[in-house]
């Protein structure tokens, strides 16, 4: 089964990525850039200095003020979309599993980006960062993107190391753009340090955190005396299920989400909770549009 069916692809045809920040791209594109360039959009004036291109002198100003000013135009550049997919073993959990859900989201966002002039780079992470595709641009890259995502598998060894993965992402020389971080955020070392690495590239990138959780995690169907076994590190927990314990778990989960949301909000990141119970197409076509990532 392909990650995206044709009906869905048809639905996203008119969509495009929206960046609330003006981000410097590498190639001329359709996006406004902070760089002053050669588009038709006027941006500002600045005094002429020797060596400037005389074609951009504003002769009307020179006539009125007898001073040379250069007309600056906004340069329109391409937008970079960085998608980071958590491929740790915990993502395989749930029905449908979170990893499939994450890949479909990545596929949808990547397809939308490639439909336009945006450039897409996809990487996966577990114990460390591993590129999946990119950079890619243009419609012709869509099949390659989808194929790479379909072949992507979870890492069956090691445990999630969000901090290391994000540090590797930050250390790689990369253009600013939109960063979509798709994960369940289950890392015993915490998520805070990792997200700080994401920010280390400067505030020009727009970071979206998609918190994917399966319905088995939001509402565990468990009862009796159980030994819960962590699928990644094998750590176990002996529990005797009771309504009180389930209530405590739900409260802890809510608090966990709240921590991520607050951390993100304080640092200008966007947090979106994406339970797999919410149909994938509804997430893309409705929730993310309302969040302003797509239009």
């Amino acid at each position, binding site marked *: 089964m392909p990650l995206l069916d044709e009906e869905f692809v048809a639905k996203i045809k008119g969509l495009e990525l929206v960046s609330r920040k003006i981000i410097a791209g590498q190639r001329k594109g359709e996006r406004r850039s902070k760089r002053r360039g050669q588009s038709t959009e006027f941006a500002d004036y600045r005094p002429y200095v020797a060596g400037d291109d005389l074609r951009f002198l504003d002769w009307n100003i020179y006539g009125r003020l007898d001073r040379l000013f250069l007309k600056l135009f906004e340069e329109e550049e391409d937008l970079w979309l960085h998608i980071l997919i958590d491929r740790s073993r*915990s*993502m395989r959990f*749930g029905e449908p599993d979170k990893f499939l859900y994450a890949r479909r989201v990545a596929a949808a966002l990547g397809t939308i980006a490639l439909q336009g002039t945006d450039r897409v780079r996809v990487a996966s992470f577990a114990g460390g960062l591993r590129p999946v595709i990119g950079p890619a641009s243009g419609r012709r890259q869509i099949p390659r993107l989808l194929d790479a995502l379909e072949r992507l598998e979870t890492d069956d060894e090691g445990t999630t190391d969000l901090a290391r993965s994000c540090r590797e992402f930050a250390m790689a020389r990369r253009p600013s753009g939109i960063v979509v971080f798709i994960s369940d955020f289950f890392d015993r070392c915490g998520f805070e340090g990792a997200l700080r690495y994401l920010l280390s590239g400067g505030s020009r990138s727009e970071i979206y955190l998609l918190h994917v959780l399966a319905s088995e995690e939001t509402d565990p169907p468990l009862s*009796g005396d159980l030994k819960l076994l*962590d*699928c990644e590190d094998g750590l176990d927990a002996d*529990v005797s299920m009771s309504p*009180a314990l389930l209530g*405590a778990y739900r409260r802890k989960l809510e608090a966990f989400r709240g921590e991520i949301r607050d951390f993100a909000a304080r640092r200008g990141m966007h947090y979106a909770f994406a339970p797999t119970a919410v149909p994938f197409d509804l997430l893309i076509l409705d929730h993310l549009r309302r969040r302003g990532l797509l239009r």
Partner: protein
Amino acid sequence: MSAPPLLFAFEGFAWFLAPLIPALIALYFLKLKRRTVLVSSTLLWKRSIEDMRANAPFQRLRRSLLLLLQLLALLGLIVAASKPILMGWSSGGRSILLLIDRSASMNTREDGGTRLDAARREALRLVDGLVAGDRLAVVAFAQRAEVLQPLTADAALLRRTIESITPTSLPTDLPAALSTAQAMAESLPSAEIFIVGDGCYGELAGLPLELRRFGLRYVGIGRASENIGIVELDVRRGFGSRGRVELFAAVGNYTRASRSVGLGVYQGERLLAAAEMEIPAGETRPHTFDVSRLSIDGGETSAHLKLEISEGGSLPDDDRAFVRVAPPERLAVLVVGDPNGFLDRALAVLPQVDASRMALAEYAALVREGKITPDAARVVIFDRAAPPVAPASAPGTGLVPPPHQPALYLGCAPDLPELAEGRKPELVKSPIIVDWDRSHPVNRFPAYADLRIVESLGFGPSRVYRSLIDAPQKSIAGTVSLQPQGGPPVRAIIVGFDVLKSNWPLLHSFPVFIGNAIEWLGAATEGEALPRYRTGEILSRRAPEGNAPGLSFRDPAGRDHPAIPEVSGRIAFATTSRTGIYELRSGGDVVDSFPVSLLSSRESSIVPQSEIRFGSEAVAGQAAATLQTRDLWKLFVLGALGLLCLEWWVYNRRMHC
């Protein structure tokens, strides 16, 4: 006596099984079957557990409905194993076997009546408490148990039966009574056995397993009473001086203080001897009286002596005891064989012995004619001449020709197949005496180390033969005891060597041996009554010879009981339930008399027991009113089963939902 409303028949079981509860809890922890469930991360679960300490032991216990149900079920089973009994409330439909003690100790006088009266009252109270569906059987017991009334629900009949229970002076045998009750209860699905008595039953072994399935209850009768009683009495004539008569008595003090007791020996109303004894508390003291002053008239067969104590306490049965003294009896001894001066002299020195001699041929002729009577020859000595025996004689009768008196064979042996298992005695030359049986009465005093013999018959081991004097590998003298079919037991002493071909007549052991042998053989006739009997013992003697019409035993109360001679020629009377003189009468004349006394330290010790101890187990006494009981163990078992079903249901529900 106030009883708790709920008691446990096997309380020890509960203590024995109680450790199962902590064991179950421990097993719960050790063997808790946790289902392993793979989760994406235990991160949040750990936080949740820490938050509510869900894995704390008591938290786990509190949440475990299954464990709670298991514990309740186990508790129910433990309580059921202890056999809980709800007192004072009966559900009806019970089968009760009521065992009423009527032994001698129940004749103790207390509060204006006897203990048996009190037992009757308690039994009647029990009958009053019967509800619809209850049935009760009445068994009176002492030495034997007698079913007076089989199971019935007829209260009026039961009352009449209980009121008709007569006292006895018999000792008690509770195990025998319980065996009777067990035999009655075996055909019943469930039964309760109630013992009403004073608990003076001595040391009892553990309760038999078969009885444990029945509810055993004890209604204690009596209060602390004091008693002093005669526990032993016997009479004997002095050895070698048959004119001297000694009365041996033992008196027990069953009070809590040392007591001085006066004793008097009476023949009729005449005081023959008296003594005063100081007996410490709880002890028994013997005393010997010289009663040689007693007189036996020519026409009387015996004299009766009565020993009486003053201040005998609450139990009258043991305050007097009786003994019979027979006149010094002359023993007719017939010697068959050629003259033997040494033997004749040995017999001549024996007091009370009338010896006569005849040749073997003359004896054989008299035997053929049937002219030898037991009274004419109580003991026969065959001196170097064994009697001829008819080939058609019945087995065993060949020991001595009719009328089968005890016999002493000197230097000869009877032609008896049973002797030496059919092998002929061998002739042993110059046998050396290696040993002799010092425990046998015949060998009392003599020693045979100096005995020199030319030759002797040697006897091998046999079922009927007991050696008296041993030579290497063979016995040269011994006793033979036989029980011929249909006849009284016969015994003989065989000396395998001719005393004239030995130095024995010159040794002092010879006359002593002859005296002992005649005394032992003469006593074996058992024709007469013994000096004294205990209550419950069978009175037995040889039936009077000749035509004795209308034989009957008369008990001390004056009631006559017909006496019918048995095939063996003896007559017996078994129901010696009261103390006193029993008489054997024939056509109104007293033929013989039998003194019967209690003489039982167990019955004289009348301190009532609050519980009956069966080995290490005790059945505590209860008031009859509390014996309206209901067994609750079935309810507890049902409850435990119900809880287990519920636990199973909850378990399955958890596993599959």
